[in-house]
């Protein structure tokens, strides 16, 4: 049992786990959050716009993504992205796409649906008077959005956005199904190489826990400060 617990395997591999694995996980989380927020905001605006068809398309996309398991979406894009690349670049055959690019495209497009719902709630939480006031100042509707509605929506939704980012951070562990070397992937490789599954998986769990727990504590502090500021 715990008497055979081999701390040495952790001592030998933690540099690799954090430098290669955790860096991959954090990079993917950061880039997918940025991409997802940009795309999600566009989707939210499209969904709330008064143009024909656009709200329907954006809503359909959001609902489709939100009703599928992430694992299935990861597989979808893993096979689809080479064909999409071929179509976009007009090349003769499906292009070669690396695992990281494929994962980044997947998580950006998938998280965009969740960020779109957050931003939609954020935009709808802005009192109508703000929009009317901006219009009365003579701002075009694109500027009303850019200078009045979106800054406030972002600010109000900051805690929810950060919570979603923590969820995304945990979800990136699913790139395991593509055999990529994220934190869990790195732990799993060492675990199977050295036959030390107990130590490596417990260590990975601990790292995930510390980061997520600290981050969610931080979000709570932020929330409390914002509540006082209002």
């Amino acid at each position, binding site marked *: *049992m715990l008497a055979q617990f081999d701390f040495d395997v952790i001592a030998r591999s933690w540099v690799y786990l954090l430098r290669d694995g955790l860096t991959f996980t954090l990079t993917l989380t950061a880039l997918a959050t940025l991409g997802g927020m940009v795309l999600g905001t566009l989707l939210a605006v499209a969904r709330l716009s008064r143009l024909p068809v656009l709200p329907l398309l954006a809503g359909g996309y959001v609902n489709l993504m939100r009703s*599928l398991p992430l694992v299935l979406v990861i597989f979808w894009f893993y096979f689809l992205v080479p064909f999409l690349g071929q179509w976009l670049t007009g090349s003769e055959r499906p292009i070669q796409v690396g695992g990281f690019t494929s994962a980044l495209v997947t998580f950006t497009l998938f998280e965009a649906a969740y960020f779109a719902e957050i931003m939609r709630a954020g935009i709808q939480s802005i009192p109508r008077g703000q929009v009317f006031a901006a219009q009365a100042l003579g701002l075009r509707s694109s500027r009303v959005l850019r200078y009045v509605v979106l800054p406030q929506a972002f600010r109000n939704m900051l805690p929810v956005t950060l919570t979603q980012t923590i969820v995304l951070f945990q979800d990136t562990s699913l790139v395991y199904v593509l055999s990529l070397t994220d934190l*869990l992937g790195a732990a799993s490789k060492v675990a199977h190489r050295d036959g030390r599954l107990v130590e490596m998986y417990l260590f990975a769990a601990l790292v995930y826990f510390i980061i997520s727990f600290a981050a969610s504590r931080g979000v709570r502090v932020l929330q409390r400060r914002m509540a006082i500021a209002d």
Partner: protein
Amino acid sequence: MNYHWNWRIFWELSPDATGTYLDLLLSGLAWTLATSACAWIIALLLGAIVGVLRTLPSRALARASGAYVEVFRNVPLLVQLFLWFFVLPELVPPRMGLWLKQLPDAPFYTAVVGLGLFMSARVAEQVRAGVTALPRGQRMAATALGLTTTQAYRHVLLPMAFRIILPPLTSEFLNTIKNSSVALTIGLMELTAQARSMQEFSFQVFEAFTAATLLYLAVNILVVLAGRLLERAVAVPGYVGGR
């Protein structure tokens, strides 16, 4: 696109000779539904208990149940499943570990327990939110009637709280169904796993994933509809959703 489409693939025999590819996917769907349903029972029971503990006046109980929620919420589901599947059998006495490893359908039981506990933390948060959302007068009225704390929860607070949180619980159940696909990593042959094996056998990747997508969508729609029917059936006149 130079991809060779073949939608008739679903009626061709799969190489494991148990039926057509469509049968393969449907057996995956059955495992998905069975896993989600069993995990949901665990999640509801444990989630209700832990959620109630978080609303009791006792400091120690609130802290313990808070720790429970934090642990299960801050470790990715995939890692939790690996802990149950690979790590637990090594930490228990050797005979029990051997029994766990040799259990038939071990991926299924592991997925049910792992997913159930993972979701129970989320259910607990919903239950707590539901109980704290009730007007304080409800608890006071129950006490004034001479009900004990247990009776107050059993007859007054929980029946109302569960009605309030029915819509978020429906979406947590949908999350349970979606999350069951993570169990393919420990060898559960659920819907996504079967779509993947159909892709490996037949090379018709997009047909396989399209079928899986449609099946997930159909399940989603059915659960949402059932949730609405349930909300309407249990609505209390004059309260949320009631007339």
